């Protein structure tokens, strides 16, 4: 096909040795390229896209309406006021929303394994993780992020909190760490689907379930549940731990004060574990082909 201008030997120019950083760069680039294609695909159905984004916003807004109704019947829930609960609700929602936007579509991985289209991802020169994460990238998820951000912003203007430098800095750290923890859960759930292709719903327990959990104060729940959310699936670090510090509340498990600042470390650790799970899942797929 290529003519004399491109002699056969030139082909090898595409085949340079690449290291780990190059793989990460390729992955990011591939992710953005593929996500961009999905965005353009959705814009084809403009009305539907607008409707879905608004729907996404409304869905979570109704969630908050329920919280508001609850606080219409009581001034405090588990010792927390509406404003304080809104702070938890908003931070958890933003964290989940960011993770959902970035890697949330990975829950469709089992379907790809079942119908065999997983193979088409494996023959492209882009890391499979990046392709799976960008698969069906949905900008409509900005609806959830926006709604949660509005609630978070509203709560912050009304909280009676000393906005010291530490507290101010802790907010973005909390949101990003929370997004990282949720992203790790999404990834682990997707990796699990390499083995159990039908089990997409399990991860909802930890993603949307985790969101439902952390949008309420920890004092609402049984101690064992809080322990599980701290030491087993560390959802407590999405927002509870840093938020309790900001709100000046006692740690529900009486953990030492430095734990409040551990969210970034916990996020890094669970992301690393999720990466291992992903690699194990992919390896299993490549040895069994199903």
């Amino acid at each position, binding site marked *: 096909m290529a003519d004399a201008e491109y002699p056969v030997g030139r082909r090898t120019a595409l085949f340079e040795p690449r290291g780990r950083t190059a793989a990460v760069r390729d992955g990011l680039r591939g992710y953005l390229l593929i996500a961009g294609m999905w965005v353009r695909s959705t814009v084809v*159905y403009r*009305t*539907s896209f607008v*409707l*879905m984004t608004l*729907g996404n916003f*409304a*869905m979570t807004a*109704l*969630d908050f*309406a*329920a919280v508001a*109704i*609850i606080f*219409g*019947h*009581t001034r*405090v*829930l*588990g010792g927390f006021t509406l404003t304080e609960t809104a702070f938890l609700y908003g931070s958890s929602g933003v964290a989940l929303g960011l993770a959902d936007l970035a890697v949330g579509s990975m829950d469709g991985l089992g379907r790809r394994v079942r119908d065999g289209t997983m193979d088409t991802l494996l023959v492209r020169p882009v890391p499979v993780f990046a392709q799976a994460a960008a698969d069906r990238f949905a900008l409509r998820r900005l609806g959830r992020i926006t709604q949660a951000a509005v609630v978070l912003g509203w709560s912050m203007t009304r909280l009676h909190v000393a906005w010291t430098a530490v507290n101010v800095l802790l907010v973005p750290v909390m949101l990003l760490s929370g997004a990282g923890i949720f992203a790790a859960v999404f990834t682990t759930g997707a990796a699990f689907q390499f083995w*159990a*292709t*039908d*089990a*997409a*719903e*399990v991860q*909802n*327990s*930890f993603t949307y*379930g985790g969101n*439902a*959990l952390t949008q*309420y104060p920890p*004092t*609402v*729940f*049984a101690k064992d*549940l809080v322990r599980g959310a701290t030491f087993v699936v560390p959802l407590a670090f999405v927002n509870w731990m840093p938020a309790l510090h900001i709100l000046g509340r006692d740690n529900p498990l009486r953990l030492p004060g430095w734990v409040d600042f551990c969210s970034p470390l916990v996020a890094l650790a669970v992301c690393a574990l999720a990466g291992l799970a992903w690699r194990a899942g992919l390896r299993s797929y490549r040895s069994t082909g199903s």
Partner: protein
Amino acid sequence: MRLYAAVAVRGFRRYATYRVATLAGVFTNTVFGFIVAYTFTALWSVRPRLGGYDLPHAVTFVWLGQALLMTTALLGGGFETELVERIRSGDVAIDLYRPADLQLWWLASDFGRAAFHLIGRGVLPMAAASVVFRLAWPAEVSTWVCFLVSVGLGVLVSFAIRYLVALTSFWLLDGAGALLLATLLATFFSGMVLPLTVFPGWLGTLARALPWSAQLQVPADVFLGRHRGTGELWALAFQAGWAAVLLGAGRLLQSVATRKVVVQGG
């Protein structure tokens, strides 16, 4: 009639094949049940008798919601996506030439699905809950019977609504938006987020009168024995009334849509 029974059995079997998916769903229902049950416990401990429920009532309400979530398809996930797809691709024209009524055919299949979900997704979360929480079980057999009838009517109303929504894709290019809106209304106005008796003032009155309440609020109240004597019959009549109205509307819309298909040739 035999045809529709066969369709219903097929609907049941179709969902029964996905064992892992069912177990995954049961797990998720149970996790959500726990989380919501704790928040309700916190609320009812400061406001006992809120909405006319005591604490075991409120907690039972939560678990009934998880048990019926799939049965009355509050989050969708029934036949409607398939019907929308068939309308979009034009395959629905083939369905119209079948020697079966389009609405009854889908209804039978959805009843099969609902029956499976009631057993496969409803029983286990309730069983798990009864280990940890004190639930308010019906004392009399008649209440159980009434509850099952009420769930059946709830499925009927749920079907009728989703059928109407799916038919809109004869006119709208993309059915996804309408389906999402339907899900939104169903979760909020069925009592899934909060019992409708807790909704304040006019919002509560409105929510209890809307058809979505037939999908969870009414069956749950029957289960909890809040309707006594003739009250129970009135509750069922409320559901049946909405079912009749909505199924009738579905028929009407279906005939308009069919005419459109015949005229345009698909």
